[in-house]
């Protein structure tokens, strides 16, 4: 096992890694930007090094500063957390070139899975379903129509050079496909100076279901069941839970084994997540593999009792995964709410600032992961998550009740948070029934807010 590691991150995930290190008896070095110099969790590290100015580019994304901090503090490994440098294969390789272990998968696996085209080829080779489509650029309208007829309407027209929703059009029949294809091509040429388009089947009201994976460097790799993260706003997850209320046992088994197959094909080790979209007929399609620990990992920790962060560290130190697939049982239902310092009534405007009031929920079945406390300040420089509130109860119905209770107890002020939004979600009949999709928040909870916030 390592004697000393460095956490190249901030906020709750830095604290999460510090907690794991303290329990493992591994010394831990924290790094911080000038904005985070008063962060309370730094007191829990064995050492803390200021690595740069407030802006992420100068500190938490500053690979040279982090490696310098690692050198002057003599650590043997770096835990990247999530975000920042966590999925950067170049940084992983830089660490390893400095003989400092990067706590994550191999740089090669990161590189392969970070490339959408390569990842899809891997999935195809591993017989993991992909969203049906043109399998590359379509030459013209007629080819587009032929593809659409093969895969069935509705379809999406996507610009090869596009991304993040830009340059996308839907078509529900041949007429609209032909019109939209022409328009999309002009738009793509103007926007990206590249008019190439491809066609994909439109998955309507998709659910987001992901599978937690854990593997060692000797090829042992298991899944720790799924998390359902369908409750999103603009691709930002708001609520995550396990088990998924959407899929049946057979789909779950197929999903989990598909994820394991794909990860093994990629030579994956450490913790990782395989993301799928699932339609209403329980058809699932591979989206991507996130080659890092995820924000919502505690959901899986609660239902399986497995400490994922400790395992990441052990595996990076060369230990074998002593857990076999049959050792991992799923127990009860766990739900996580991401509490953000945002004003849902005001286009989700971030609300950083000093926190005077902070009363954390407690009692049976509640877990809170947060770096915040009364007297802290939510910094405007970084993401707005102030706490992850989780409950774990024998059934989903019990978990809903416990989450409502816990949300009612949580006091954070005077900054605005998403707690009232979560309270609305947990009273909504569709969510209570477990019947939501990734468009639910915009469609059901915030109608009208789309326009209001589109300028932000």
């Amino acid at each position, binding site marked *: 096992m390592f004697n000393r590691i460095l956490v190249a991150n901030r906020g709750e995930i830095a604290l999460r890694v510090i907690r794991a290190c303290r329990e493992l008896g591994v010394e831990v070095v924290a790094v911080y930007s000038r904005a985070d110099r008063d962060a309370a969790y730094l*007191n829990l590290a064995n050492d803390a090094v200021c690595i*740069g100015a407030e802006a992420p580019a100068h500190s938490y994304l500053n690979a*040279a500063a982090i490696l*310098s901090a690692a050198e002057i503090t003599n650590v043997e490994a770096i835990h990247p957390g999530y975000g920042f440098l966590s999925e950067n294969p170049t940084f992983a390789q830089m660490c390893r070139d400095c003989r400092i272990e990067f706590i994550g998968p191999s740089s090669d696996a990161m590189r392969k899975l970070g490339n959408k085209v390569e990842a899809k080829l891997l999935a195809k080779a591993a017989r993991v379903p992909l969203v049906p489509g043109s399998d590359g650029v379509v030459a013209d309208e007629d080819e587009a129509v032929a593809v659409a007829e093969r895969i069935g309407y509705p379809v999406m027209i996507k610009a090869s050079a596009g991304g993040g929703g830009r340059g996308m059009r839907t078509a529900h029949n041949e007429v609209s496909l032909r019109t939209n294809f022409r328009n999309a091509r002009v738009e793509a040429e103007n926007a990206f100076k590249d008019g190439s388009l491809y066609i994909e089947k439109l998955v309507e009201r998709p659910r987001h279901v992901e599978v937690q994976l854990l593997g060692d460097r000797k090829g042992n790799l298991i899944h720790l069941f799924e998390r359902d993260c369908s409750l999103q706003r603009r691709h930002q997850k708001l609520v995550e839970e396990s088990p998924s209320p959407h899929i049946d046992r057979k789909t779950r088994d197929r999903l989990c084994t598909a994820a394991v197959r794909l990860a093994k094909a990629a030579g994956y080790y450490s913790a990782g997540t395989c993301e799928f979209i699932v339609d209403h007929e329980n058809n699932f399609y591979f989206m991507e593999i996130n080659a890092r620990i995820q924000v919502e990992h505690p959901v899986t920790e609660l239902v399986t009792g497995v400490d994922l962060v400790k395992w990441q560290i052990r595996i990076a130190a060369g230990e074998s995964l002593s857990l076999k697939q049959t050792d991992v049982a799923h127990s009860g239902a766990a739900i996580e709410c991401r509490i953000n310092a945002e004003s849902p009534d005001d286009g989700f405007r971030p609300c950083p600032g000093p926190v005077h009031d902070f009363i954390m929920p407690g009692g049976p079945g509640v877990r809170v992961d947060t770096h915040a406390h009364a*007297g802290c300040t939510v910094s405007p420089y970084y993401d707005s998550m102030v706490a992850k509130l989780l409950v774990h109860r024998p059934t989903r119905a019990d978990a809903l009740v416990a989450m409502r209770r816990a949300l009612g107890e949580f006091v954070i002020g005077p900054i605005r948070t998403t707690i009232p939004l979560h309270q609305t979600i947990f009273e909504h009949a569709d969510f209570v029934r477990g019947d939501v999709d990734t468009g639910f928040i915009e469609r059901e909870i915030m109608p009208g807010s789309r326009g209001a916030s589109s300028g932000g």
Partner: protein
Amino acid sequence: MPDTRLHSMEIDTDKIKTLLELMVQHDVSRIEIAEGESRILLRRGHTPSVIAPAITPQPFALAPNPGPAAAPAAPTASSPVAEETFIRSPMVGTFYTAPDPESPAFVQSGEIVTPDRVVCLIEAMKVFNEIKAEVSGRITRVLVKNAQAVEYDQPLFAIVAT
């Protein structure tokens, strides 16, 4: 009306918007941020010479937090004890007082330096970086020992303008 002056080309308008909102929210009259090459000064409301009946101090200052165990509290440049300011480390690394173990130190306490004078080396990622004084003045104290690790923004030398 807020008075906003920007001393750099690389500005982030979203950040400025956020800052302005924060200023209004907390009745802050002045924010100054230096970040690498960038400097931002935001000012709103009355100038300090106009004394309003009720002044609200910035709530940010009201939440003292003892700071990380290992990080020396950085003295403020505007310390009233003397006209001492600091030459600070622009990076994380290892501090060297001299170009090599056989040579004398770049500077000694008491010496007068010009902005271009190299005052030390900081080794980071196997590269030795020459650190210049950037200001004129008399070095009053060397705050870091040779071969000691330094972090970003850590004071290296105390200097008094001459």
